[in-house]
């Protein structure tokens, strides 16, 4: 029998699916796909009740609970005979509520681009880890192994190579006069290096990268990606360069915060007008043609300056880029009456994006996730010490 229901997990969660199949008394197999996981997940339903589940090497109830962490991805339900033993004895409502609770409580990890797992020999570091989708080995020209603590990239040196993490975790650090400051950690599927490095001949490394535990990296076929890059329109290249600039700016912001350099962003709104309001769902994107604009986030403790935009920089909402900044999570402001900007043709960008190789797309997505995670970090008040449960 064919597929009787399929869709997106971010739209309809496993918890909701359990309710729906329960109400309909359906019998069949639900398959879940998540690009951050090598294997498919399965849940078997008999008369509306989940009777078994498979997730990686786990089976039964434990597997089912793990699958609640798959909040992204796709699902497919096939009506088919299921005649296996009842491995799962709990009622479906209990499973649904318990599974959801475990995700909320952090007992079950969400499988997605950002997690908090630790490196093999990590020193109790609790920085988030960014993961990427599965690696396309067509683009890996060589593999390299690094030992725990070994430096992969040194800040300030020239270099154009890019790596993808095949196994393990690396830490990205900024070198400062007061010693290195950890910014973020990246894990399997994530890229190391910078997408802008594909273009510039003499790319200067803006951060250091160090192995957190033993890691295996894949050297990315830069030549192939550079050729792909070269074929892009000027507008598309601009977006990528501008994105890279934002990453560098927010990384510096994090360093300032970490070093407790007082940067007063509280007066930033003075004499300025709002171009895009934080929380608006405006779907347009623009490019600065004259003047300057500022991306600021309004937080409970005031404004945080995230980026300064100049001629050639974009702002707004690019369909394939979720920056974690404007329009949903930041304002764009500019000195009254001084900003000149053009509308970006998003349809054109989107169709160009559609034609990119999966690896190139992943690199862009990875950069955006990195930006979004560092933005969150720089807007989260520093906790002195993790408080125990009340």
């Amino acid at each position: 029998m064919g597929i009787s229901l399929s869709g997106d997990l971010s739209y309809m969660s496993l918890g909701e699916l359990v309710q729906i199949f329960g109400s309909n008394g359906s019998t069949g197999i639900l398959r879940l796909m998540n690009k951050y996981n090598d294997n498919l997940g399965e849940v078997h339903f008999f008369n509306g009740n989940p009777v078994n589940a498979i997730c990686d090497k786990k089976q039964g109830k434990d597997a089912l609970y793990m699958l609640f962490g798959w909040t992204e991805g796709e699902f497919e339900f096939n009506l088919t005979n299921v005649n296996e033993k009842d491995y799962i004895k709990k009622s479906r409502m209990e499973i649904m509520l318990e599974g959801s609770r475990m995700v909320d409580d952090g007992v079950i990890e969400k499988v997605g681009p950002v997690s908090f797992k630790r490196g093999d020999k990590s020193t109790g570091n609790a920085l988030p880890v960014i993961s990427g989708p599965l690696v396309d080995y067509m683009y890996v020209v060589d593999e390299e192994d690094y030992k725990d603590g070994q430096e992969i990239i040194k800040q300030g040196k020239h270099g154009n190579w890019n790596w993808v993490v095949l196994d393990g975790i690396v830490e990205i650090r900024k070198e400062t006069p007061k010693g290195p400051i950890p910014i973020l950690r990246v894990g399997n599927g994530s890229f190391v290096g910078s997408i802008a490095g594909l273009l510039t001949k003499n790319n200067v490394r803006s951060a250091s990268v160090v192995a957190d535990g033993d890691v295996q990296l894949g050297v990315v076929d830069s030549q192939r990606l550079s050729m792909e890059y070269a074929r892009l329109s000027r507008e598309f290249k601009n977006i990528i360069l501008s994105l890279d600039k934002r990453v560098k700016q927010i990384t510096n912001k994090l360093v300032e915060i970490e070093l407790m350099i007082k940067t007063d962003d509280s007066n930033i709104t003075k004499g300025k007008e709002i171009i895009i309001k934080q929380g608006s769902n405006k779907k347009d994107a623009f490019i600065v043609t004259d003047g300057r604009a500022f991306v600021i986030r309004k937080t409970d403790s005031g404004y945080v300056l995230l980026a300064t935009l100049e001629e050639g920089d974009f702002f707004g909402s690019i369909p394939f880029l979720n920056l974690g900044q404007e329009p949903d999570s930041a304002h764009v402001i500019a000195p009254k009456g001084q900003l000149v900007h053009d509308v970006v043709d998003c349809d054109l960008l989107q169709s160009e994006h559609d034609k990119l190789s999966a690896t190139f797309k992943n690199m862009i997505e990875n950069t955006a996730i990195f930006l979004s995670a560092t933005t969150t970090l720089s807007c989260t008040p520093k906790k002195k010490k993790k408080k125990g449960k009340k």
Partner: protein
Amino acid sequence: MAIFNIKKREIECKIVYYGPGRCGKTTNLEYIFKSYKKQVEGEMVSINTEGDRTLFFDFLPMELGKIKGCEIRVQMFTVPGQVQYSSTRKLVLKGVDGIIFVADSMDVRREKNMESLKDLQKNLKEYGLNIFKIPLVLQYNKRDLAEQGIPIMSVEQMERDLNRQLKVPAFPGSAMTGKGVGKTLQECLKLTLKSLHKQFNWAE
């Protein structure tokens, strides 16, 4: 969104007890579970959420009769109150057909009641539901505390705080003694049924 199950000749709908933490949602549901035992099908599911328990059971309210020969089955839920359970709260609210908002009569909980009602409105909106249109009943709980000399708000004040714009049925009650609990549920069931009739476009 109620589910119409032709095979089982059943209409399944969802009623959720909403309200700030410790207002008495669990106590309400426990009281119903105990005193309407004959109309309850299956076990009560109880999940331990921090500082709280989240409950579920199936309820078959006889007095509602049938719609077009279909039995009505009501899934009764409480939502976990703590902030961190946002996805569980959303999951429980998805497809809700009727809501009982339990407000705490204690003076000190005034702000919390109003915040929680706003939160409800926001959550419903995310599902494209309108708090002014969904079957909703208020319960002003813990009225019994007055007898112990604990300061509580007057019903009039709670009406002003919470029901000025909504103008939905509201009942004083005490989930602890059971007073008003049945009445609140009856009213919510009545409104829910009316709305189901409308949804399925069936004349009564």
